[in-house]
């Protein structure tokens, strides 16, 4: 028995029946099972079980998100230094970024874990790892300037209202991280919209240096008046296709890099964790809608209509949302065809909200929540069809 095993064994007695902290058993279990898979043999058939458990499943989603954190930390610091007129060297940028992002992550996890533990203790079940994924996703969707108390409030709303009141992970039909994010947007629009919120200022500054505009590509695309040359407008604002792909521009902490989101999506698809039906459905829906808008666009219509469909995919957090939020298996559609429709509709809505609702420049979050609401209906319809095809066995 090694030291770590001894440590858990000696702690165990306090958390099991009759121990001082017996009520906090879910806490103990949750931490111990990170180090050691539980010692549990099957009691009924099948005698053998697959090695996969929910912990591994969720852990890998978090692994997929780590590059976004690495990039987000750098980008937050870099944009901050740029706007504050400070050195944009790698290490200073990382340092600033770390300060901002780590604090947010710590607050999110602490608050989120508190709620989950509370419900786990009251309901006497083990802590579900879905929480760790929600808490990993949530900060990535926030602007770096978000006050910590708002982040705490947001994740509380997401976990409690988005998930626990429905009975916890597995019974929720909304994506908790997005629910929290949407709540913040509607409750505190001042801190979550406008060009200023996407860049953290440091060094005691209250305004960015003159050369720094801070406008995100989405807001550039929304407000431009120059007709029929929207790509040119974006390029003039510094948003070349390459920059949009890479994501080194002001935006939410982790959502700007389409390239990383594509890599993450590929990772999750190869492992079979994310549904290819949903991801491809989303991308297809987005491209098709943007293409359709191109077709109806005239020389005098809104410039946004004529934006190249691939720009839609590259701008903002669309791909991030598709790869990690739309694919949350619990809140997504469950049936194969329903998944395609679910994904496709998310793509469609993302573009429509972006183009036609200037008050909400990034449409992907809202699109996903909206489709979360419809997923059960889509499932029901497909289920009906499927059951009708079954030859009854009576």
């Amino acid at each position, binding site marked *: 028995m090694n030291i770590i095993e001894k440590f858990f064994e000696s702690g165990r007695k306090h958390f099991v029946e009759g121990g001082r902290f017996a009520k906090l058993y879910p806490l103990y*279990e949750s931490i111990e099972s990170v180090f050691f898979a539980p010692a549990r043999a099957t009691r009924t058939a099948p005698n*053998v079980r697959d090695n996969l458990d929910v912990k591994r499943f969720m852990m890998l989603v978090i692994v997929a998100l780590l590059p976004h954190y690495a990039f987000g930390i750098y980008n937050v610091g870099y944009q901050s230094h740029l706007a504050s007129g400070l050195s944009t060297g790698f290490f200073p940028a990382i340092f600033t970024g770390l300060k901002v992002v780590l604090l947010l992550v710590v607050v999110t996890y602490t608050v989120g874990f508190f709620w989950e533990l509370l419900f786990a203790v009251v309901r006497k079940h083990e802590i579900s790892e879905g929480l760790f994924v929600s808490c990993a996703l949530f900060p990535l969707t926030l602007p770096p300037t978000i006050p910590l108390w708002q982040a705490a409030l947001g994740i509380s709303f997401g976990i409690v209202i988005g998930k626990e009141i429905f009975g916890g992970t597995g019974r929720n039909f909304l994506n908790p991280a997005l629910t929290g994010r949407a709540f913040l947007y509607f409750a505190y629009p001042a801190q979550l919209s406008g060009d200023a919120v996407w860049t953290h200022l440091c060094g005691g500054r209250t305004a960015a240096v003159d050369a720094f505009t801070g406008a995100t590509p989405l807001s550039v695309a929304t407000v431009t008046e120059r007709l029929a040359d929207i790509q040119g407008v974006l390029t003039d604002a510094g948003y070349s296709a390459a920059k949009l792909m890479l994501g080194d521009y002001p935006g939410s902490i982790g959502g700007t890099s389409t390239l990383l989101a594509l890599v993450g999506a590929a990772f999750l698809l190869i492992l079979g964790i994310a549904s290819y039906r949903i991801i491809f459905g989303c991308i297809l829906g987005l491209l098709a809608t943007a293409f359709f808008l191109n077709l109806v666009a005239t020389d005098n219509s809104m410039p946004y209509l004529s934006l190249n469909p691939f720009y839609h995919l590259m701008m903002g957090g669309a791909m991030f949302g598709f790869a990690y939020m739309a694919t949350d298996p619990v809140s997504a559609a469950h049936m194969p065809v329903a998944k395609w429709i679910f994904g496709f509709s998310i793509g469609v809505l993302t573009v429509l909200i972006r183009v036609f609702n200037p008050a909400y420049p990034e449409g992907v979050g809202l699109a996903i929540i909206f489709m979360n609401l419809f997923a059960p209906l889509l499932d029901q319809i497909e289920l009906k069809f499927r059951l009708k095809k079954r030859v009854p066995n009576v």
Partner: protein
Amino acid sequence: MKSIRIKSGFNIKVSGQPAPEVQSLQKPTRLALLPERIPFVKPRLKVKAGDTVQVGSPLIEDKRNSEIQFLSPGGGKVVDVIFGPRRVIREIVIQLDDEEKQVEFESLPEIDIKKIDRDQLIRLIVNGGLWPLIRELPFRDYPSPDTVPPAIYVSLGNLEPFQPLPEVYLAGSTELFEYGLKVLGKLSADRVQVCASRTNTAIQRQLNGIITLTYSGNYPVHDPGVLVYHMKTSTEENRSWYVDGQNVLLLAHLLKNGTYPTRRTVALAGSCARVKKHFHTRLGAPLAHITDDRIDDSDIRYIEGGLLTGYAGSAHTYLGLFETALSLIPEGHEKGELLGLFRPGYRKPSYSRVFLSALNRENLEMTCSVHGGDRACIACGYCAQVCPVDILPQFTYKAVLAGEVEESLEHGLLDCVECGLCSYVCPSKIELFETLKNAKADFYKEKMA
């Protein structure tokens, strides 16, 4: 020859396969009948401790139909009747004597099979205590002797780890097997399907021209329930009967020789068995007699039947009437390795692709560990992907828990072939299989009551 192929199902890559060799074991000192392990039967004891019995004397009868009796696998003295909780009869143990007198049954020469009256043939099987070897879909109880089946499926080979190979138990018994097929033909107006794996060339050579249906694909494509599901043209066929290939030999032995059969070919396998091969032994043999000193470890599970659908026995129990396999694998009571969660898992078999074992073609060692805690369903959909009969186990499970019998039937509950794959793959460790199997059995009992 018809051929069936399925894309669903799953083959577990587990090590410990039995070799095709076979060895005959000495006569054991004791044998037993395990009424507890005979599905659905409500046993009434016909003997008590101290009684003398012959090979073929009735030990219990079914209270639901007292014609159906289960006979003694050996001759000697009843030394013990062991009861479990709520007075279920666990074991009726017989101490064998040297001579082992045999009850004489009426024998049936091969040429008479065609001529004999069907009812009379059924009488012979029922009196010989072997009627329950014939099972009826979808509930898998023995059929009522006065029904005529739409077809009888004879399954040769079983893809579940680790079952005996048909070419081994049929070796040298082809004639007896053909005799048995004729009997089944008589019972079903010649609608017998003899099913074997398409890739098993040994059995195809041995039974040239006898096999009528081949299958290919993953476990449990061999199961008659799966074959019927994928072939049926009418709902009537859901009531088909089936007999395991080895049990055809028992039936044939009874009718041909007029004595109760006693031989059982058992596969001893699993990573804890030092010798992994087939053994000829007796029906109801003690497990310890089969394992003898062929064991490696101490914390071992004795699985009677397959790794998925079998049940746990011990060194002190006996072979169940229907069981032809004994697998020994580690219990898996220990915790996982340190930070196993983050390891690539090249040697951890999984249905999913989240371990590096997805690239490993070797068969890997498995234990009886659950590998995780109980969680709510995360809608991964794996259970529906593996189900060989297109059930959506996660939805059916919910319907069952909510007490919605009609709804669960609509979901195809009765098509469930009880393969256990849904529970096997579930990352949330939900007991889907158990729940569905019990729901099915409850529905049946209610219907019969």
